[in-house]
């Protein structure tokens, strides 16, 4: 009996060892590095000193603030994806083409997207040329060279690229909803708005939650590519984000211990959202099976 109780662990052991080696060791090593500092050429334990120094670093604080500002893209992305998905679900003419077109940006590499938009948003770029051509030259701006406009410009590109994933997610869920639910609501006299309010959105609730959490994780720890390619964190740190800060600390300034401290913080914050996402998925699975 005792043997049978432990038997599953024996089967799991190889996988657990692999997981610990692949994920556990790097994490432990990262935490250790974050608590050390090189003194006279030798790594020495310094407790939380690196973390304290971080919170006195104005560039790090700017990076955190920018990551928080980027969170503004989440409701916009989710809302826009929802609206577009609902319209596509109405089977408007050419909806399959629109669906593909909207999803296409999500498939493109971030570096390619960043490069293309860098050219579009230059002071002498395509967008400003277009504005001049239609007589709206007064709206032309230095989209990437201005400290006030650079971050909103990056936010726009993030939304443009990420919204397609939401549309496809929402549309897939909507297509699996029983048609009778919509028919019943229509028979009961529900207008278009009521149909969305009382049928569509409740049916999408779990997917909306999932996409929201994924989008939050994306803007917290997956925006390096956008910023690195489009602005390099500038002008004057106006678009600095924590991921880029980690990269610069570790690889440009040769301060791996400080970079590790930021990575631990980033991992903890992202971990909360990953945990949340897992819980939501668990709840969603339970909902599907019950």
């Amino acid at each position, binding site marked *: 009996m005792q043997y049978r109780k432990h038997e599953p662990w024996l089967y799991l052991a190889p996988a657990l060892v692999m997981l610990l080696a692949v994920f556990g060791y790097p994490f432990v090593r990262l935490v250790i590095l974050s608590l050390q500092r090189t003194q006279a050429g030798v790594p020495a334990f310094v407790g939380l000193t690196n973390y304290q120094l971080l919170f006195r670093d104005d560039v790090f604080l700017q990076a955190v603030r920018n990551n928080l500002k980027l969170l503004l893209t989440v409701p916009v992305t989710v809302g826009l994806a929802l609206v577009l998905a609902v319209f596509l679900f109405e089977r408007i003419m050419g909806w399959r083409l629109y669906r593909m077109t909207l999803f296409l940006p999500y498939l493109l590499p971030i570096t390619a997207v960043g490069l293309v938009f860098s050219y579009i948003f230059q002071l002498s770029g395509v967008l400003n040329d277009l504005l001049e051509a239609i007589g709206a030259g007064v709206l032309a701006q230095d989209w990437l060279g201005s400290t006030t406009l650079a971050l909103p410009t990056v936010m726009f590109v993030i939304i443009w690229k990420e919204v397609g994933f939401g549309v496809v997610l929402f549309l897939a869920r909507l297509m699996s909803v029983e048609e009778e639910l919509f028919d019943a609501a229509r028979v009961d006299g529900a207008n278009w708005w009521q149909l969305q309010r009382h049928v569509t959105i409740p049916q999408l609730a779990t997917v909306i939650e999932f996409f929201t959490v994924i989008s939050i994780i994306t803007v917290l720890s997956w925006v390096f590519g956008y910023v690195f390619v489009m602005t390099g964190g500038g002008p*004057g740190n106006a678009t600095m984000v924590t991921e880029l800060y980690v990269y610069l600390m570790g690889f440009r300034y040769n301060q791996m211990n400080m970079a590790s401290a930021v990575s631990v913080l980033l991992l903890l914050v992202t971990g909360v959202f990953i945990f949340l996402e897992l819980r939501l998925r668990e709840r969603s699975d339970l909902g599907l099976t019950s």
Partner: protein
Amino acid sequence: MRTTMRVLSLLALLALLVPACGAPATEAPAEAPAEAPAEAPAEAPAEAEPIKLTIWWWGEQEAPGAQAWLDETLALYSEANPNVTFEAVLQSTDTLIPAFQSAAAAKEGPDIQYFWGGVWTIENAWTDAIIPVDDLIPAEEWDHYLNVFERQYDGKTWGVPWYLSGNPVVFNPELFTQAGLDPNAPPATWDELLVACDKLRAVDVIPIAGGVKDGWFGGWLFSILARQPHDSEKAFMEASVGQASYTEPKFTEWWGRLGELKDRGCWNEDIGSLDYQQGQDLFVTGKAAMLFGNDTFLAGWAQTMGWDKIGLMLTPQYSDGALADDYIVTAQGWGITSWSEHPQEAADFLVFMHTPDRVNAWFKATGVLPADDRLDTSLITQPQLQQVYEWDTTRGGPNLENFIPSMMDEQANFAGVQLLFAGDATPEELGQLTEDVNAKWREQNPDAAANFEKWIE
């Protein structure tokens, strides 16, 4: 199906047999030396020992033609030393440092690594990633290498220079003439530069081209402009470790001068949204009259625009420090890693790169001047390159970016220049920013600050 199975079975059998047959074949020679006569050539086994040297490098980025030269050099060396083979990995600007930092952390990677000069090399000595090379290379060789001082620290030399990279102001004589400027007497003083800007603007030519979005040009501008009131790169090293202040007028004046150029309309308006390369293209395409350039690109630009549209001048002077009228030059070079199992062989190859044949071949392949005085100067036929060679050898001065903390370069120079062009900071604020960044660097990285202090000595 049956045939397929037979073939597969046969292949499987062969796979089992080949190693089985191979084993005795490799064991046989092991016994041979025991029976061999004592007077058998002692060097034979050493000569036969296969050696593979891994090289990570970057030179093609600023010296087009370097790839072909390196391929040829590796082939020639392997031909003369059949036991030595190479693996050469070309890095991009963005991966050059991160890839090596990762390799250094793992103590695994290249035997020979490409490095920029100064701190970019020396900081790897502080982390024990590279070894001193003085004893690996004959003393008479060192006499021929140029700009060795950038790689010296604590009485040792931590790398070998390869080629020279200098910063002239490049101008387009045709556009100068169009604006009523004399291309034979380009601006030598700051006031003359401002007047030239006005004249070029008057004929709708961008006076000076630039792009600061990717930051790198900010570091160049610091090195080119901040030096003029100072006598030595040590002034900046001392300020970085807190022995002087970056808020002193001598250190903030360059910000004011740069602002003056901006306010006078000397730069392209879109400088803030262009990368350095894109800014440079404005000059190469004939839209801009001047460029704070790099002499390694001259031959490449000449292929596009012709040598007749390339004139060279020193940076117009606004101050009279000893660094004001020198020619900024650094040597890009090599280091040998501390984990290399073949440091002597790596050093031997670096010496081979400096043989007169290879030095001359380098210049022919790239049009870039090698960091070696054995270059046959009769090969330099272009007057512009003759000018560069003369400046390199008679008035070469340090590239300041190589003597400051990289954090200062990024967070003060790169970011500060961007803020200045965006109109968001004054010279005084930028001086304070530089001072704050250095104070932060010392606090976050006291070990590096201590190393810098030792370096100053």
